[in-house]
């Protein structure tokens, strides 16, 4: 086989490798999706973040609008400080609220944003004031048990209340 042919074949081989990498990066991984684009940061403090992890999705009305980029403990208030990056295309009113929700019964946890009614929008670096913590199953069961002990017979109602 001529030298030229070998060079062409090796060129094809390397090109095939690059195509494979592009396929893995674009079609089979998250490059070119939320996280690589233009984003702004907002923070929120939660009493309990449950099982929220870095890179967890931030959704509004179920639509992916951003990702959790940092989780820390605020040592002043002993609350979980969650940093989120939200795509610049999605602007939210200043009094929007953040909840930690669970996808399905045993699914991953994510941050749900509910828009408020303020005219001004959240600016980069702002902190979301209204938050609702993750529902921790143990606490829920604990409340259910104590509620049951307190008022025998009224347990379903009290469970429904505390479960909210």
């Amino acid at each position, binding site marked *: 086989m001529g030298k030229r042919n070998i060079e062409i074949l*090796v060129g094809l081989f*390397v090109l095939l490798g690059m195509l494979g990498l592009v396929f893995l990066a674009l079609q089979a*991984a998250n490059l070119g999706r939320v996280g690589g684009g233009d984003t702004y940061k907002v923070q929120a403090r939660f009493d309990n973040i449950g099982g929220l992890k870095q890179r967890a*999705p931030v959704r509004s009305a179920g639509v992916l609008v951003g990702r959790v980029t940092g989780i820390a403990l605020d040592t002043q208030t002993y609350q979980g400080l969650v940093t989120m990056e939200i795509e610049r295309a999605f602007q939210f009113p200043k009094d929007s609220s953040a909840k930690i929700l669970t996808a399905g019964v045993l699914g991953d946890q994510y941050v749900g944003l509910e828009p408020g009614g303020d005219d001004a929008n959240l600016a980069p670096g702002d902190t979301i004031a209204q938050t609702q913590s993750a529902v921790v199953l143990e606490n829920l069961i604990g409340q259910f048990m104590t509620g049951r002990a307190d008022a025998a017979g009224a347990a379903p109602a009290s469970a429904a209340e505390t479960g909210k």
Partner: protein
Amino acid sequence: MEPLARLGAIALEQFRGWGHAAFFFLQMLRAVPASLRRFDLVVAQVHAIGNRSLVIILASGLAVGFVLALQMYYALVTYGAAENLGLIVNLSLVRELGPVVAALLFAGRAGTSLTAEIGLMKAGEQLAAMELMAVDPKSRVLAPRLIGGIVSMPILAILFSAVGILGAWVVAVLLIGVDAGNFWSIMQTGVDVWRDVGNGVVKAAVFGVLCTVVALYQGHETEATPEGVAYATTRTVVISSLWVLGMDFILTALMFSTP
């Protein structure tokens, strides 16, 4: 006292071997710049090592993708989570199976041929003849093969994973009927380019260096007899495979220990 001395002797012999191999590796590295000036030699080696391993790598990747998708489907469908199939297949291929299985195949397909080639060159005193003609066999023979292996291995691992994912797509979406949109989008949400794909490529590059160095070292150190070459070839496969499996555990622990 005698068993203790024997243990010591074995350990010392091991260390001597490792030191010798490391020294051999460094000498080859020093010859790399010189061999890059004869770039056609490197291209020929990429062809011999990379291109010619392509068929076995692609066929194995496709088969692994098929089988993984089928088995995962049977397990996942009981939990109603068949859509997560793509994610599981992707992560297991990109992080572990792609680099490791490609490296094992690479050791079997390319490593053995390197060992046999160098071993026979040595047995035929071709390397010694080169030195007599003031041609450095390290930069003329060994270094181009080292570069060829290091270039080829990550490409082969990437193709293994890519073809495996396509195979899983064929089984899951085309044959079983898992929803194509969910298949890709759950995969895209769960797989990170740098953390998963990037680290997989780094792993493959490490395995490429390991397998090629082991193959060249075994060939270079072979006894100059037919049995010696046969023995060296066998040892190449065994030693590279063990190194790849051991190194994979260490790299996985380093790369993916944080959730």
